[in-house]
């Protein structure tokens, strides 16, 4: 379990995360959604211990994150950053093995993770020869190979095609089902609604909503936070999130919408 109490993070002169109290349980897949600049990345980096809070703290299983050693953190928290830069042209297997390097059977673990993201066939290839989407899957496999109980992912779906966005979320859901805490920042609200057990909505560094996707994605919240018209509707497969093609363009149209 990982939680924050009144967490604030200051970056340069702006408070990117403000007074946020959250709680993430094992066995659940959490979506972290919010517009650009709402504080998702900073929150994830604070949860990973990569940026120090200006107030409050992060706790893992009732221990302060700041009290854990670097290796203690590394054994508990796996983090997939948003930037996907790879400096050297290692093989796919070597990259994934980096995730498992604290284990003796790193190679076997790397192969299992590659299998999970459907890249066993390219394990021996050089990573620079892969497409952007395949590279994103290699890095996801690197994260899975860490076998950390808590997995944090910053926009893991970027560069993935629609089929693999769903497959990737399926992999994360499966990881949650195995008992991991999985927290991923996502931009696609429809996918977040379809795959996540719970959703935190960030807005201006604060939590603007928390609950199951159905509880959270209400028309007023979608309009206020995302400037989108939409909400849950019944469909053949049960309730699903529907979003209008055009954003709410201004406050006038917002008030029109509700008048």
């Amino acid at each position: 379990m990982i939680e924050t109490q009144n967490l604030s993070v200051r970056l340069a002169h702006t408070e990117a995360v403000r007074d946020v109290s959250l709680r993430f349980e094992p066995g659940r897949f959490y979506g972290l959604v919010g517009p650009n600049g709402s504080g998702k990345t900073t929150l994830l980096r604070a949860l990973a211990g990569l940026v120090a809070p200006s107030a409050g703290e992060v706790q893992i299983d009732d221990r302060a994150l700041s009290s854990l050693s670097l290796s203690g953190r590394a054994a508990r928290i796996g983090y997939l950053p948003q930037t996907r830069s790879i400096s050297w042209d290692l093989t796919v297997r070597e990259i994934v093995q980096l995730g498992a390097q604290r284990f003796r059977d790193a190679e076997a673990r790397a192969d299992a993770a590659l299998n999970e993201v459907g890249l066993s066939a390219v394990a021996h290839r050089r990573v620079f020869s892969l497409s952007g989407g395949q590279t994103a899957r290699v890095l996801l496999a690197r994260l899975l190979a860490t076998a950390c109980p808590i997995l944090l992912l910053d926009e893991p779906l970027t560069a993935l095609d629609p089929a693999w966005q769903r497959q990737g979320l399926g992999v994360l859901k499966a990881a949650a089902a195995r008992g991991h805490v999985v927290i991923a920042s996502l931009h696609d609200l429809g996918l977040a609604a379809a795959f996540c057990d719970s959703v935190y909505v960030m807005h201006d560094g604060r939590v603007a909503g928390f609950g199951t996707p159905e509880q959270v994605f209400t028309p007023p919240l979608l309009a206020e936070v995302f400037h989108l018209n939409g909400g849950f509707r019944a469909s053949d497969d049960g309730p699903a999130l529907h979003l209008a093609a055009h954003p709410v363009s201004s406050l006038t149209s917002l008030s029109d919408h509700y008048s």
Partner: protein
Amino acid sequence: MKIWIILALSAALLLVLLMGMGEVALSPADYAEALRAPGSLAGDILWQIRLPRNLCALLVGAMLGVAGAVAQGYFRNPLAEPGLMGVSGGAGLGAAIAIVLGLGLMPGAVEGFALLFAGGVSLIILAFVSRFPDRQALILLGVGLSSLTGALMALVFNLSPSPVTTAEILGWMMGSVENRSWTDAAMAAGGLLLAALMLWRVGPGLRLLTLGEDTARSQGVDLRQLAALSVVAISVLAGLAVAVSGVIGFVGLAAPHLVRGLGVRDPYRLIAPSGLAGGVMVLLADGAVRLLPTSTDIRLGVLTSLIGAPLFALLAWKSAKEWVQG
């Protein structure tokens, strides 16, 4: 065959071959005498002149190759080289000051001054890195320190008492392993040993840096420690290399690329073969210097730069193409 075995064999072969090259032509009987009686004239030539010179070439090349591999790995930049941090410039400045002060003929004085100044620059870098373990900031600091040592070097030339002194500094700056002693070779070997001790445990960190600093930190890499170990090792090697042999350009840049071209991409596994490749390159260049039929000896550093500069341009060209397509 493993790459490092090929490189080690090449280095050993060159070391033996170059024992047969020098100003004095030796007959087979001379070699036999040198082996039988190390104190004889032939023995002196072989054991006190040629072997220290060849060992210095090998060890200086190895220092530059290792420092280059660590610099490229730590800075995650294929264009990084040992001189990047300004330590080589500091060592050059120290040597120039020693020569201007008239200490050129005092044994060990030029080397001592070079080491002293390299150490000074290293301390500035270490103080900086302990507060800001950030590679971009370090590169900026390196550019600043290099400019400063360059400016001070210009001042030394400016205030140089005579054209002879200026020529002496210039000659030293051009790099050479001629007339090197066992002390020089021991200094180089000591530097390599020290660097090996420092670099012993940077493997996981350098490898994980391949995926960026956030990933490395999240997997338990102490970036401050990694920065300190890498930067100090680079400084020790670059400073000592200049102290032993003057400025020998481009070996530190090119050796890691040579090894990468042979298929080793792992930034840690690259280090040792890169050292061997550097040694082979400087031995080859020093052999070429002895073979070239010029009336004035071509200096070793001039030759490595002449070969290295076009290589650097080619690398920059290839990188630029990748960035533009990127």
